[in-house]
C-alpha cells in the first residue's frame, strides 16, 4: 500500500465521520410541526367539549394526524434528496419517530375505537410512548437535557393516570409546548447557526 492509497482511505473515512456529524445537526422542524399540530388539536378538542359541539372526534384527529404524517413524509423526502448518503444517526432517528408514530397512531385510531382504551387516558398513554422516544433521541443527539425530557413525559403520564379529567388536555398541550416545541426551536436555531458556519 503506498502513501497515495493510504491518504485516499483516510480522506474517505474523514468524509464518513463528517457526514455522521452533519446528521446530528438536526433542523427540529418535525418536533415543532407535530408539537404545534397536536397542541392545537387538543385545544380545539377541549373547546368542542366545553361548548358541547357535535363533532366526529375520529375524523377530527384523522385530519390532524394525517396532516402530520403528510408533513413528515415530504420532510423525509426532502432530507433524502438533500443529504445523501444518509448517516447512521440520521437513519436511527428517523426510525425512532417512524416507529413511535406508528405505535401512537394505532393507540389513537384502533385502541380507542376498540373500546380497550378509554378516551380520557389517551394523553397519559401517549406521554408514556413519547418518553420512550425522547430518551432514545437524547442518546442520538447526545444531549443530556433531552434525555431528562423523557422523565418529564413519564412524570406527566403518571400524573394524568392518577388525576384524570378534562384538565389533562391542558397538561398535555403544555407538555407538548415545553417538551417538544421548545426543544424543536432550540434544534432549529442550532441548525441555522451550523448552516451559516
Amino acid at each position, binding site marked *: *500500500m*503506498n*502513501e497515495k492509497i*493510504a*491518504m485516499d*482511505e*483516510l480522506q474517505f*473515512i474523514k468524509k464518513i465521520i463528517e457526514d455522521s456529524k452533519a446528521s446530528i445537526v438536526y433542523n427540529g422542524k418535525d418536533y415543532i410541526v407535530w408539537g404545534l399540530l397536536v397542541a392545537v388539536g387538543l385545544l380545539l378538542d377541549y373547546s368542542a367539549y366545553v361548548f358541547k359541539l357535535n363533532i366526529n372526534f375520529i375524523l377530527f384527529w384523522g385530519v390532524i394526524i394525517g396532516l402530520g404524517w403528510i408533513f413528515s413524509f415530504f420532510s423525509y423526502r426532502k432530507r433524502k434528496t438533500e443529504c445523501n448518503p444518509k448517516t*447512521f*444517526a440520521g*437513519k*436511527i432517528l428517523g*426510525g*425512532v419517530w*417512524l*416507529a*413511535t408514530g*406508528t*405505535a401512537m397512531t*394505532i*393507540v389513537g385510531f*384502533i*385502541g380507542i375505537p*376498540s*373500546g*380497550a*382504551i*378509554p378516551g*380520557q*387516558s389517551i394523553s*397519559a*398513554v401517549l406521554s*408514556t*410512548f413519547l*418518553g*420512550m*422516544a425522547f*430518551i*432514545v433521541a*437524547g*442518546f*442520538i443527539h447526545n444531549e443530556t437535557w433531552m*434525555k431528562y425530557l*423523557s422523565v418529564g413525559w*413519564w412524570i406527566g*403520564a*403518571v400524573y394524568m*393516570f*392518577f388525576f*384524570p379529567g378534562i384538565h389533562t388536555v391542558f397538561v398535555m398541550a403544555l407538555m407538548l409546548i415545553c417538551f417538544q416545541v421548545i426543544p424543536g426551536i432550540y434544534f432549529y436555531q442550532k441548525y441555522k447557526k451550523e448552516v451559516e458556519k
Partner: protein
Amino acid sequence: MDDRTAIDELIFIRKVIEDSKRTVVENGIGYIFWGILVFLGMMSVYVGIMFQQPINSVWVWVVLIGFGWGYTIIANMRMHNKQQKKTFAGKILISVWIGAGIAMTILGFVATASGMIHGYAVSPLIALVLGTAYFISGMIYDSQWVKMLSVGWWIGGIAMFYIHNIHQVLMMAIMMLVLQIIPGFIFYFNSKNEMRKSND
C-alpha cells in the same frame, strides 16, 4: 504523514470499526431472559383463571418484573465494569430497552393501579411498545428480520385490542414465545458463530 504512519492509522481505525461491530452483535440473553419471565407470568395468570386456582396475578407480576429489573441492573453494572468503552450504537440500543422497560412498567403497573386502563388493554399496549423497540433495534443491527418482528408485535397488538377475554393472555404468551424467545435464541446462536469466527 509518511507511508508507515498512514498504515498504522488505518489499522487503528479498522480495529475501532471492528470492535464497534462486535459490540452490536447481540448475544440474545436479555431477550431470552425477559421473554421467559413474561411467558411464565402470562401462563400462570392464564392457568390460574382457566383452572380457577387462587393465584394473585398482581403479586406474580411484581415478583417477576422486580426480579427481571434486579437481574438486568446487576448484569448491566457487571458489564459496565468489564467493558469500559461503549460504542454509539451500543449506547442507543441500551437506551431503547431502558425506555421500553420504563414505558412497559408504567403501562403495566401505574396505569392499571390508577384504574384508567383496564387489564385487557395492557397486553396490546405492551405489544405496541415492543414493536417500537424491535423496529429501532432492527435498524441498529441493520437486520431486516428483526425489523419485521415489529410488524408481528404491532399486528398482534391490534388484534389484542379486540380480544377482551382471557384468551388474550394466551395470545400474548404465544407472541412472547414466537417474537421474543425464539429470536433471542437466534441471536444467541449467531453470536456464538460470530465469536467462533473472530477466534479463528
